[in-house]
């Protein structure tokens, strides 16, 4: 059975001819909001998307200074994200996201001691309101959304009978609330060049162990380019602010901070309905809370979507 999966993996890699990677946020939760498609489905349309994210969390920072990690720690989160969106009316749509998460932590100097956990992660349900859409006349559109973060995933996973730390659990175990907004401005009637801005925020609750992942806010601004060819490109700057995690109502040291990332995206339209999408998150600057904190070093996402 395993060899079948391995074969599928191998041929998938050949097919895509690139690394098959993914991403999450550095709070060790899964980047649910940042991973959702930015648009909103038109009335009656369905959007299905699946993506794989790989997030390497191996950079060691003291404040805003990157320092060497001589422990050769390798921390990785791989996620499968499944998104379904549906346009209910011309203004209202609903999006939902489900995640499957695999955490892995290996300390190189410890003869490769490995901790890992995997399973269903948290989910998000978002209701979006889109009063204006881009068109031949409208050069400006925006959407607003509110939703829930659903604690669908496991957060009591153990290894060798010992409860894994909160950041190694597939799910947060806590309900949360999310806010989402997106605006786009096109510079021509064809909309070949667009400027966009997005914002999302999550307000996280406390789980049964009185642990609360820090609330976070993300803002991005960028440009998107389309052409006569089926390839479109976009690049954005993203600022992320995360408050420190809390346990027993007190701050957990060395969590939270500010991140500035560059986010390039390449999308290839296979057909009128199908599209492939590859994106990355490249660190530009960080200012992290506490004395010492591991944080994102690489984030890659590969996805496919279909709209009908």
């Amino acid at each position: 059975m395993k060899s079948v999966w391995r074969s599928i993996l191998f041929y998938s890699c050949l097919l895509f001819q690139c690394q098959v990677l993914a991403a999450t946020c550095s709070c060790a939760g899964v980047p649910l909001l940042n991973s959702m498609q930015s648009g909103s489905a038109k009335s009656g349309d369905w959007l299905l998307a699946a993506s794989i994210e790989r997030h390497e969390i191996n950079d060691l920072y003291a404040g805003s200074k990157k320092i060497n990690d001589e422990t050769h720690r390798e921390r990785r989160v791989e996620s499968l994200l499944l998104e379904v969106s549906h346009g209910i009316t011309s203004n209202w749509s609903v999006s939902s996201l489900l995640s499957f998460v695999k955490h892995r932590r290996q300390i190189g100097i410890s003869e490769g001691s490995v901790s890992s956990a995997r399973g269903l992660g948290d989910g998000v349900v978002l209701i979006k309101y889109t009063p204006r859409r881009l068109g031949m006349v409208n050069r400006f559109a925006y959407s607003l959304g509110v939703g829930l973060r659903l604690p669908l995933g496991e957060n009591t996973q153990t290894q060798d009978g010992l409860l894994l730390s909160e950041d190694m659990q597939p799910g947060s175990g806590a309900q949360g609330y999310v806010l989402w907004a997106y605006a786009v401005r096109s510079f021509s009637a064809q909309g070949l060049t667009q400027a966009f801005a997005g914002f999302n925020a999550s307000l996280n609750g406390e789980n049964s162990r009185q642990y609360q992942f820090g609330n976070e806010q993300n803002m991005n601004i960028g440009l998107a380019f389309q052409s006569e060819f089926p390839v479109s490109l976009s690049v954005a700057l993203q600022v992320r602010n995360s408050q420190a995690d809390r346990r027993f109502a007190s701050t957990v040291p060395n969590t939270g901070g500010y991140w500035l990332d560059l986010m390039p995206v390449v999308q290839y339209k296979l057909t009128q309905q199908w599209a492939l999408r590859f994106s990355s998150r490249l660190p530009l600057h960080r200012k992290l809370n506490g004395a010492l904190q591991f944080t994102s070093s690489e984030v890659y996402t590969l996805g496919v979507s279909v709209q009908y």
Partner: protein
Amino acid sequence: MPLLPLLVALCLSACLDSAPENTAGFWSVPQSEVLDGGPGKDGIPAVDAPQFYQDASGLVMADDELVVAFRFGNDVRAYPHQVLDYHEVVNDTFNNTEVVISYCPLTGSSMVWQGEAVSSNQSFGVSGLLYNSNLILYDRATNSHWSQMLMQSINGTRIHQISTQLVSSEMSWGTWKKLYPSKPVLNFNTGFSRPYGRYPYGSYKDSDATIFPANNSNDERFSAKQRVLGVKVLESFKAYSMANFSSDGITVIADTIGGEPLTVWGSQNLNIAVVFNRLLSDGSLLSFSALAPQAFPALVTDDEGNHWDVFGVAISGPRQGQSLNQPFSFIAYWFAWAAFYPDTQVFEVDQ
């Protein structure tokens, strides 16, 4: 269009590979109370090849910073908390004898153990696990887990084995400079890039909050982070708050715990607290009194005229070179001592 199923299959492949083998075995403490602290095994790296400043002049540090002082024969060394905060374990060698210096920043407890000769590798590492918020070490010879504050192996082939505690003392850097200005101090050049001098736990030391759960946390006889000298003799336990000691000199307390006559020496301004047995192996029962700072590094004298240092070694007098026996004892935050030893009696000044 096969891409969507392929992508799903791809992730499932990653998600379904075999789980790590369970090698847990039996724990002598409730397994549900052993927690993953987050960094992982050796994620907090022990210092295995410690280097030393030749003397105190090699290091600039605030006088109120703490160090763990340790004496082995005539060799005296200091290990600053500023380094231990990031490493928790130092594997050091004195005259071919391996010792492990451990410090848990979350419970404020330090201890020095002698390496146990079960193999050529007697060193310890940081397991990344916590019990009652306290450091769990592992020995590299057998991978057995050891609770620092129980001083005992709690899992693995050496389970229930008790380590050998060696006499050490915490003190402020200012005190170290007065007592042992020419003795070596652990160098900040550890082989690891860490922001030594920057306390890694935020406001932890100064607040009552803990990051991880601990038993008996509602024992409020002292505030949670009050540093206490905890003493265990047989099944009797006693705690001395640092506030019990003089802020201008050395307090000497004659006490009895578990039937054993003890002498407790403490000072707020020197930031020391140690306890020794007053009854010597030859049957002599000594009475101790404090010395003036002019006698440093001697802190106390006795009714025979011996002068004793903070490690309980007679540095002058008829018993010069002899050592006092030390019961199981160390300084820790109150919440932690109370978690491990809930039946502890607290020392009160009018006793």
